[in-house]
């Protein structure tokens, strides 16, 4: 399963990159995120609550950052266990490309996701649409927050 999208941001690349590395900022971008704590430079602990099809499940897991190439992008990988509901994992390759005049940045992402257990058994048809929706929500609200901050300045 592959999901791709991109956004134009009226901000320089460094500003976007900083936000991508700010866990408070990230947390605010994930409305369904109940907990996000930095464990190390590249690792965060997370608790999220998701509804996939008929199942509402709390996932406990970790988020790791890899392929870090400041300020051009990274790969953010999350994996979580939802107890009896099974497990889910997904990663997003995030890339930042600045326009020539450095006034704006294109944020693009490619997501892949896998599910196991009951979520796969009951919700497989819904995973693609759920992952798409979640990705859009996350990057959408991330971009929105950045734009709001930009405007209020």
């Amino acid at each position, binding site marked *: 399963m592959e999901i791709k999208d991109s956004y134009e941001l009226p901000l320089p690349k460094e500003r976007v990159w900083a936000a991508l590395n700010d866990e408070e900022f990230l947390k605010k971008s994930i409305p369904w995120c109940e907990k996000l704590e930095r464990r190390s430079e590249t690792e965060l602990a997370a608790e999220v609550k998701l509804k996939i099809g008929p199942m509402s499940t709390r996932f406990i897991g970790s988020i790791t950052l890899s392929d870090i190439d400041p300020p051009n992008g990274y790969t953010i990988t999350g994996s979580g266990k939802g107890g009896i509901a099974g497990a889910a994992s997904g990663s997003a390759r995030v890339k930042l490309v600045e326009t020539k005049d450095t006034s704006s940045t294109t944020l693009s992402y490619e997501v892949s996701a896998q599910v196991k257990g009951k979520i796969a*058994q009951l919700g497989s048809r819904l995973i693609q649409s759920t992952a798409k929706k979640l990705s859009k929500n996350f990057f959408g609200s991330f971009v929105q927050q950045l734009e709001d901050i930009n405007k209020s300045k």
Partner: protein
Amino acid sequence: MNEVTKIDGIGSSVRRTEDKKFLTGKGKYTDDINRPGQVQAYFLRSDVAHAKIKKIDVKDAQSAPGVVGVFTGDDIAADKVGGPICGWVVPCRDGSATKEPPHPLLAQGKVRFVGDAIAVVLAETAEQAKSGAELIEVDYEELSPVVDFENAGEGAQIHDEVPNNCYFDWELGDEKATADALSSAKKIVKLRVRNNRLVPNAMEPRCALAEFDNLDDSYTLHTTSQNPHLTRLVLAAFMFAIPESKLRVIAPDVGGGFGSKIYVYIEEAVCVWASKKVGRPVKWTADRTQAFLTDCHGRDHVNDVQLGLDENNKIVGLRVDTVCNLGAYLSAFSVVVPTYLHGTLLSGQYDIPAIYTNVKGMATNTVNVDAYRGAGRPEATYLLERTMETAAREVGMDPAEFRRINFIPKGAFPYQTQVALQYDIGDYEPHLDKAMEMIDYSNFEKRRAEAAKRGMYRGIGISSYIEACGLAPSAVVGALGGRVGQWESASVRVNPTGTISVFTGSHSHGQGHATTFAQIVADKLGIPMENVEVVHGDTDKTPFGMGSYGSRSLASGGSAISKAVDKIINKSKKIAAHLLEASEDDIDFKDGKFVVGGTDKEKAFGEIALAAYVPHNYPLETLEPGLEENAFYDPTNFVYPSGTHIAEVEVDPATGVVQVVDWAACDDFGNLVNPMIVEGQVHGGIAQGIGQALLEDAHYDENGQLLTASYMDYCMPRADDLPSFKVGYTTTPSTVNDLGVKGCGEAGAIASPPALINAVIDALSPLGVTDMSMPATPQKVWKAIQDSQSVAAE
């Protein structure tokens, strides 16, 4: 003239006596039974397809509310309890044996499919058991999953004992003669077909209730089984090493099996083990998801077929190379289904002088695959009847005529096929003719033209099938690798008033034995059916029996009852001779009365029964009192039902939806005991076949996750998917048994898929479509139509 009581005997469409309780919701299934103090079991299952288990931490689960015990594979191993066994193995081409890896009751070190049981949690309530299981931490080291069975040989090895993930590589027939025949053939028709994987979907999920009695060290297991005695044998002899007398197995009302309840699964065995461990009755009921994940699936073959024809379009040779998916462990009959129940059927109804087949059984990280309604025979019929249809098209013959010229002629019976079986009797043209008449075959082109005016593609498809059922004789079964006998038992007890209790080794889980078997007894003894009760399903009540599967109950179980009744009649004649002061040779038995030939001296059956139990005037010096007889019947051959089914469909090119608009089924089941029950079996079988052909498909993704694990994604046939069936019969009584009966339980599921797919291809043939895989879903059909149009446009 004597007043004769109306007897609902053989050939009468008596309403099923067992239906009152089922139709009023009063059936008593295993889950309806509860015991004081029972605990509920919940199985923690793997959610990965293939992994080493590094660690299982059950500490938190053990102290969870209501939890009584948490056990893992180590606990089972400590008690040296064995796992399920394979009931039939075959030799490999290279002379080696079938590879039989161990199947632990709970995973030991490794999990091999999504659903593999890792631990069992026992708690006061089912909810508490489930919540407790959530607290178990399993640390996996994931291994590469093997899902694509055709390439399983290159995948990660699933069992140490199974190199290249190949359980067996088996052959049957004469390879050289077949190669010669094919090389001399004027035309070779080649086809590759896939038999889609199915989930059995019995209405009642599996269930077990096990109790241990510490006063006499014995167990009682209520379970959903098609063969309680086999369940007891496997549990007692192979798993727990206890005397059979210390285990009673009861399979009460069972809500459908279709093969999936033949085997002893790990859950039932764990419940038995745990009932002693915790000293309380243990109950487990599968939910629907567990049924999808852990009931043995069916089919899942790929067949490469080569059929050689001579200049007159007569078949000269057939070669079939099959790869089949047997899943993570070898289930009880998983090996025989694609081999001796499949390869031996490849001659179908046709006179084929040379046949060779090779079958490779592969291990994958999917649940076990085993018998499902038809078991091997639907796969053989599908590949053969798809090939016959394709061959007819390629040589430009009407498919009916092409079959007709290749049928085994009526005078050729008994007919020895090139794949081991000898058909005792059959007559194939009459059921082809009758089915064609029933569906008005000769006017089909008019209907096609009329449908075309409405923008619909109409097609017609034939399937002429043969089935071998009533698996036998035991000596042959043994010579071919079977580890069980294939006889059936019956005990017929005449009560002092002349009523009858029949104890059968067969098991009824929807087949209507209480009615059919009573009819046989009523017919033979000339007594009302209401006077006959049929007892089954309890190892403490019935003689050791083999149970019900493979359409064997009537041919084997019914014949055993018939033999026992014959013994009753023989003994009764001796008693009657004494009472009537006549010679035994002069006694005729007719309409329930023993008559001295040529006189009006007679004794009713009830009088004989009473004399046997109150032997005041009785030949005690030469005859034992009482009237009860046993029979163990081991047939001398299979029985061979055959028939022709013709399907007519309309395809809507706008949506790709296939509507089954007409269906003619003409079957030869030999003599019919209860035509209404037979018709019901035919309907049910066709419905399942239509499900396979149009709707059902069990699908694992590349990681081994079962994506079709609920009715949201696994489509079962419903009433509006089915036409009103036209059902007819021809009759050539079996020569194998006294009743002249064959089996009818699987025929519909065997015959119907190729008829339907042939009809779909025929419908789309004006577009140049020549192939369609099962299930022919709207999406697939629509795409075939689009592709054909884009080819036409190029």
